[in-house]
Each structure stands twice: as structure tokens, then as C-alpha cells.
């Protein structure tokens, strides 16, 4: 294990493997330590994927530092079954099964900045290949994911066996031996604690520096004080809590009930706080605990959900939820919520440390997943702390969130060398998420301030020019995958997806779209307007569809995103190119009934019906043109008449509606 010491260092190279490049200025490494986690060649890692609740998973196959000191990893991808569902050809995949990319073609492997790594992933190879040291049952149970099959990206087929090399790498390296050993290391508690405490000290420092950086003395003072006390008075959190609210009240519009809740929650806090032992980290833990308790008081149910989600290892899911919540009561409450969240994560981590073994028993796979996700969790913590700190400062320094965002960036970058890795370069991980979430927070703010017309941009997953290099590289290489995926999804019946989305409140019905827009364009519109990912499906025009307003069903990733979009569309006016404001509502899809009613087909009596059924069996089809010499023809004419009447009324209705719209639209002064 690479020793990192107590100072704020979050990155260290391991052994140099070789030196290459034209000028011998590229150094290849065997391992590195990043954010307290040691990564070696052939480790499986999560890679952060913007806007997706699920991370990409890949295997590190090359690590190097380029001449300009940027750190690179080459990653061989794993595919989730959902990504290649089209090519499974009916074969069942395990729930936690992955497929290692093989063959030649796009989506096999590509180079990413090292900072794109979000954490370690425990993937065990259960292939019965003789080259693969078969893992123990325990290892398999502990594993977050298993793989034993391969996906040929060129031929797009699933393979059970594999040649000697994938992407020029000896296959034996891709099997278990190295992978499993690493995980043992990772589970060692010492490392985690260190990582945590480091992060906390880092955060504290960051805040101190941040406040120094900030020219407003008002902030510096109470904040510094706050943190001093935090660090000094570990055991006595009472005074801490006493002081904090007061210092805060100086800072911002912290409301009185807030303080009251502080004190209430404090009592619960102390024992737990004593339970923790972690130097500098303790203080901040205490602080955050108090907030998490606060949330216990205010919305316990909500928090419970959060924690469960954290346990799944899907940290950012709950994070966004929080942001969302904070947006609901944007303003006074928001710092509170974010703090709460940070607290929750810490709490989760604390608990995890305390009862690690029990959890193993209890949760089995889930907890092991969590353990191995530690790297990821920790990242979230750092992030949340940043956010927390930033927030604490935000309302005080200025009420402008915009400014806040700008403030964080430089200070983190300048003052915190270790974080720089993550944050600065190309708005990676931390900052990327931060930006994203901030953009969410401030999206209304920004957009409401910036009312200039904007052009619809492609969603970054389709677009190469994305602000995150990590994503960009991944995306550009996997554009193919992305494209394919949209096709794959057609295989999963849309009805089913819509139904689940409807049940989970993630389904929206959009109206007033230009009827000629395609589904992909609708997705891009949503991305442009809300920075939300979604899957859209335009409703196909039928003979009675309105020519004025195109409709589309949109499935969002999260309920909150859907709710946000509905609210924003309701409150604001998002003008479409056809001059109509977009209207969104929770969609209530109509599902086909088992025995649909259809008017207009008659059978005269039972006997004939039976005969007809026999006919249908015998003569597949019963279609014919009607002859004018029987009653059926007359009746058909009656239907035609009715149809024409209906057509006329529809025409008139739409004409009338069109005129009404036109009249109103004429009042719009600004045109896009």
C-alpha cells in the first residue's frame, strides 16, 4: 500500500514500468494511488459518466504520464447486459454480469484522463477458462460484478472463449489473479479511515483557504472561527454547536427554527460523535451529523431513502435528489439541505466503518459492493464537502450563485493541490459534478437571466464537444455504442418502459412541439432547456392528431427530474421555434385493453358467428370489397357518411384552434 501521510496528498505514482515516447518523456507506471486508493494495472474501475446514474466500468490496461504531465489511463471496457441487449440473442445474463470487450472496433478500449476514475470496482472473472484462476465462492459472492463472457465489438457477438490477446494485452492479465488480490487491500479499514480523514482535513483547509481567499472579512471571521472550534473542540461539540449557529446567523439569513433544530439535534449527537475517532475529521463529522439529525427531524422519510440509495453505491442518484429538494425551497433552505446530505454520506460511511462485519452478514453483496465502492463514496464526500462549504459561503458572500461557482473553482484549484487533479483540469469528476449540479440549481437562474434565444445543442452523449474530457473521450469512442444503444432500446418494448416510468412518476407528456420534430430532437431540446437526460418518443400522428401541437412522451431518469421539468415549464415559458411555449404534464399513457371495443362490425347471430370463426380458420382473411347489392353496402355507406362528418368536425376544430393560436401568437413581440 502506498503511504500517503497525513498531509493532503491524494495522488502518487507507483513503480515506473517503462519509459517511452520520442524524447523518452512518457513514463509508464504499474500503479498509482489516487484519492487514497491504490490502483494497479488490470484493476477494474468505475468511470464517471455524466448524467447517467450508472458508471461505466472498465479495466485499466495502461497507465502513463505524458510529456506535459497529464495522466492517462487506457481502459478496456466492460459492457453491461443492458448495453448490448440486442446482441444477447436470447441468452440470459446475470443481474451483475458484465461482458468484457474484445475483438476489434470502436468501443473496445480508449484512453481517458486518469481523473475520470471514480473508484474501484470489484469484478471477478468466473470463466472456466484454464488460464483463469477460478475464484473462491466467497470472492464470487463478494464481487459486485462477474464476467465470464466477452463481447466482440467488431462482430457484435457474445463469445464464451477468447484468444490470447485483447487489444494487445495478454489475456492472462485480464483474468482474476491480479484483480482479486487488490480487493483484499482495499477492504483494509485503515486505508479508508485515512482517506476519510484526509479528505476532511482537506476540506477544512479548503474552507479556511477559501475564506481567506475571499476578500470579504465578514465571512472569513466567522468561518475561520467556526472551523477552529471544530478542530479544537472535538469532544465538546456543545459549544461548537452553540457557536456555529450564531456565526452563521451573522453570515446569512439562517432562520431561527434552524437554530432551534440545531440544539435539539445536538443531544442526539454527542454520543455518536464520541463514537467517532478521527482527529480533524471528527469535527466535521459532528457538524454534519447535526445536520443529518436536522433532517431526521424535518424529513426523516426522505433521508431514509437517501441512505438506502447510498448503500447501493449509487451516490450521485441521491445527490441529485438532494439538489432537487434544495431547489424546492431554493433560498433559505438550500444550504441546509446540502449540508444534510453531506452529513448523510458521512453517516453512512461512519456506520459502515463501525459495523462493517455485521453489514457483511446483513447485506452480503450489497455491502461488499459498498466497501469496494469506497473510493467512489469518498469522492462524493469530498465533493459534498466542497459543496457544503461553498454553500455556506454562498449566501453570505453574495446571493448570486453564479459568482459562487466561479469562486469555488479558483480557490479549489489554487489552494488544494491534490484536488486540483480532480477539479481543475477539465472540469472532471468533482468539478464536473459540481458544475452539473450547479447548473441544475442555477439553471433557472441562469436561464432566467439569460433570456436570449439559444440554439438546440446535441446532448453531450451524442456530442463530442463536451466540457469534460473524460466523458468526451469516452463518448467519442463510444459514439457507436451510443448510437447503437438507441436502437437496442427499441427491443425493450417502449410500452413496458413507459409503464414503469409512469408508475415511478418519470413519464411526461410534452405538448406544443413542432409536429415534425423527431424523438432525438425532442431529447436535445430537453437537454438544452433543462440539462436533463431523457428518452423521448414522439407520438405518431394519426388522422385526428392536432396539426398545431406535436406531442411526445418523455421518460426521465429520475422522478425529480421529471417533476422539475414540469414545474419549470409551468412557471416559466419555454418558447419553441413554432412560437408556442412548451407544455409539459405528467403523462398518463393509455394501455391497450385486453378486449378492445370496436364499433361497427356486426355478426347476426351465434350460429353465423361460429360459422365465421370456422371461415376465419379456413380462409385466413375475410377482407373484401363491398358490392352495392346488399345491405352491408348501405351500412358501409352510413359509416362513410359518419366518417366524413367526423372529418369535417375535426377540420373545423383544428381550423378554429389554429386561428385562436394565430391571434395570440401575433401578440408575441419577440420572435425567435
Amino acid at each position: 500500500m502506498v503511504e500517503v501521510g497525513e498531509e493532503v496528498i491524494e495522488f502518487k505514482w507507483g513503480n515506473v514500468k517503462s519509459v517511452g515516447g520520442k524524447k523518452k518523456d512518457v513514463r509508464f507506471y504499474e500503479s498509482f494511488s489516487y484519492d487514497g486508493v491504490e490502483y494497479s494495472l488490470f484493476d477494474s474501475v468505475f468511470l464517471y459518466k455524466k448524467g447517467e446514474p450508472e458508471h461505466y466500468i472498465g479495466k485499466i490496461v495502461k497507465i502513463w504520464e505524458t510529456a506535459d504531465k497529464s495522466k492517462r489511463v487506457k481502459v478496456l471496457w466492460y459492457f453491461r447486459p443492458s448495453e448490448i441487449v440486442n446482441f444477447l440473442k436470447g441468452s440470459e445474463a446475470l443481474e451483475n454480469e458484465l461482458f468484457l470487450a474484445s475483438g476489434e472496433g470502436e468501443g473496445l478500449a480508449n484512453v481517458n484522463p486518469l481523473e475520470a476514475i471514480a473508484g474501484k470496482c470489484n469484478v471477478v472473472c468466473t470463466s472456466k477458462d484454464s488460464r483463469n484462476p477460478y475464484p473462491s465462492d466467497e470472492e464470487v459472492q463478494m464481487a459486485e460484478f462477474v464476467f465470464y463472457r466477452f463481447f466482440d465489438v467488431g462482430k457484435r457477438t457474445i463469445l464464451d472463449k477468447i484468444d490470447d490477446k485483447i487489444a494487445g494485452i495478454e489475456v492472462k492479465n485480464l483474468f482474476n489473479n491480479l484483480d482479486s488480490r487488490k480487493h483484499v487491500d482495499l477492504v483494509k479499514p485503515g486505508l479508508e479511515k485515512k482517506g476519510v480523514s484526509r479528505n476532511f482535513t482537506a476540506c477544512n483547509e479548503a474552507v479556511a483557504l477559501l475564506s481567506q481567499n475571499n476578500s470579504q472579512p465578514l465571512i472569513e471571521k466567522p468561518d475561520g472561527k467556526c472551523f477552529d472550534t471544530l478542530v479544537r473542540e472535538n469532544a465538546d461539540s456543545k459549544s461548537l454547536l452553540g457557536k456555529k449557529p450564531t456565526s452563521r446567523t451573522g453570515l446569512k439569513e439562517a432562520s431561527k427554527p434552524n437554530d432551534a433544530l440545531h440544539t435539539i439535534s445536538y443531544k442526539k449527537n454527542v454520543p455518536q460523535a464520541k463514537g467517532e475517532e478521527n482527529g480533524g475529521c471528527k469535527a466535521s463529522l459532528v457538524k454534519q451529523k447535526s445536520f443529518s439529525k436536522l433532517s431526521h427531524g424535518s424529513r426523516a422519510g426522505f433521508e431514509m431513502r437517501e441512505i438506502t440509495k447510498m448503500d447501493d453505491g449509487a451516490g450521485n442518484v441521491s445527490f441529485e435528489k438532494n439538489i432537487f429538494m434544495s431547489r424546492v425551497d431554493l433560498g433559505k433552505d438550500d444550504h441546509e439541505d446540502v449540508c444534510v446530505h453531506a452529513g448523510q454520506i458521512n453517516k453512512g460511511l461512519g456506520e459502515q466503518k463501525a459495523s462493517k462485519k455485521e453489514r457483511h452478514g446483513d447485506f452480503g453483496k450489497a455491502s461488499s459492493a459498498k466497501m469496494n465502492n469506497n473510493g467512489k463514496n469518498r469522492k462524493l464526500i469530498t465533493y459534498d464537502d466542497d459543496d457544503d462549504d461553498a454553500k455556506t459561503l454562498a449566501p453570505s458572500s453574495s446571493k448570486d450563485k453564479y459568482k459562487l461557482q466561479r469562486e469555488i473553482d479558483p480557490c479549489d484549484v489554487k489552494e488544494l493541490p491534490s484536488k486540483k487533479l480532480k477539479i481543475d483540469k477539465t472540469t472532471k469528476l468533482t468539478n464536473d459534478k459540481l458544475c452539473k449540479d450547479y447548473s441544475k440549481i442555477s439553471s433557472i437562474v441562469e436561464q432566467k437571466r439569460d433570456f436570449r434565444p439559444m440554439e438546440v445543442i446535441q446532448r453531450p452523449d451524442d456530442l463530442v464537444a463536451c466540457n469534460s474530457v473524460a466523458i468526451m473521450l469516452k463518448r467519442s469512442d463510444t459514439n457507436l455504442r451510443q448510437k447503437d444503444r438507441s436502437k437496442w432500446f427499441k427491443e425493450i418494448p417502449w410500452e413496458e418502459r413507459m409503464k414503469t416510468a409512469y408508475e415511478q412518476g418519470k413519464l411526461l407528456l410534452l405538448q406544443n412541439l413542432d409536429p415534425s420534430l423527431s424523438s432525438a430532437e425532442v431529447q436535445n431540446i430537453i437537454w438544452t432547456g433543462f440539462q436533463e437526460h431523457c428518452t423521448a418518443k414522439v407520438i405518431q400522428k394519426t388522422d385526428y392528431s392536432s396539426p398545431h401541437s406535436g406531442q411526445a412522451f418523455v421518460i426521465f431518469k429520475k422522478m425529480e427530474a421529471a417533476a422539475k421539468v414540469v414545474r419549470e415549464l409551468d412557471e416559466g415559458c419555454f418558447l419553441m421555434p413554432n412560437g408556442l411555449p412548451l407544455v409539459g404534464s405528467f403523462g398518463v399513457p393509455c394501455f391497450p385493453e385486453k378486449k378492445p371495443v370496436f364499433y361497427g362490425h356486426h355478426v347476426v347471430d351465434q350460429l353465423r358467428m361460429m360459422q365465421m370463426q370456422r371461415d376465419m380458420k379456413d380462409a385466413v382473411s375475410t377482407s373484401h370489397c363491398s358490392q352495392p347489392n346488399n345491405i352491408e353496402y348501405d351500412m358501409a355507406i352510413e359509416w362513410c357518411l359518419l366518417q366524413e362528418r367526423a372529418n369535417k368536425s375535426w377540420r373545423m376544430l383544428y381550423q378554429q384552434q389554429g386561428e385562436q393560436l394565430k391571434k395570440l401568437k401575433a401578440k408575441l413581440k419577440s420572435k425567435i
Partner: protein
Amino acid sequence: MESSAEEYSAFEQKVSRTVYFHNLSPQVTESVIRTALDQFASVKNVKFIPNYIGPSNLPQCALVELDSAKKVKEIVSMVGQYSFMMSGMPRPVRAQPAVMEMFDDRPIKPNRKIKLRWLNPDEPDFEVAKQLKNLTRKHTAEIEFIRKLQLDEEEKLAKQQEDTLKVHYKKFKMIDGIMADKTAHRLARKYNLHVADE
């Protein structure tokens, strides 16, 4: 994901080859359509348009891709001229040439730029936009209403026709009956009328 011009023109071709059928009974399946139409044209592809928003008892619609645009015209005029029945009587199916908006997998129109903007609550347009939103909602309700009305009308006509049929059936059955049990012959003899022997 920008679709190329070729892709788009291929799609346009496909649209021109496609007939839109509606007023189909729920019992109509792809094979029914294929067998019904293969006397006129070769069917390349049949796709039903799912009904996600309307009331569930709307008739089915389908997009039927044929081998050429000429056949589309023929079929449309044939179906319009004669009452074409599919899987039941007497309500005829209807056909129209398909349009792009009927396809859910339509590609993005090349070189299309979409401009959007959020309106500032302070500008007067904001109010207008709000009104427009309300109008849209009103229109949606109107559409729903008309749709319901239409279905009601259809139900009414169906019922009326069913009654007519029943009466006709009863009449025929009665005639059948009196022919069968020789009542007709007896009466003919009594009134000295000539009844044609079968």
C-alpha cells in the same frame, strides 16, 4: 447523430411508399393486412401505430409499406371508391397516403436548427405565452371531447345498425319459417294466388 441527407431522402422515399390505414378492427393483425392487400400490391412492411394517448377504444391504425408509390395511389383510390372490409362488416377501413409525422422513427431533418428560449417573466410576451399555454390545454380538452363525441356517434350508429340487422334477420327468418312449414303455400291456396315452387 445527425442523420445524413441520404438517410433522410431514403426515409422520404419510404414515406411515399406507405399507406396509412385506419378504422381497423382490433382483430386485424399484420397477416390479415398482408393477405388482404397482396391481391393489389406486395406488402413490404406493416407497422401498427400504438395508441398511447387516446381512449383505448379507438380503432387501430397501421402503416403499410408497399413496393412503390404508384401502388399507394391505387390502393388509396380503391379503398376510397369501394367500401373495403377487413376482418368484419360493415364498417369499411380507410386509407390515406402516409405522411412523415406518422413515423416514430423519423430521422432528424438535416441542417435543421432549432432555436429556443426561455421568456423573461418581465417581458409582456411572458403573459401571452402563459395564455398560449392555457389555450393549448383548452385545445387538448376540446380534442379529447370531440374524440369522445366521435366515439359516441360511432357507438350510436353501430347500435342502430345492429338493430336494423336484427329486424332484417327476424324478417328473413320469419319468411324462411313460413316457407318451410308450408304456411305460405296454404295461404296462397286460400287466396288463390300462385306461389312459385322452388
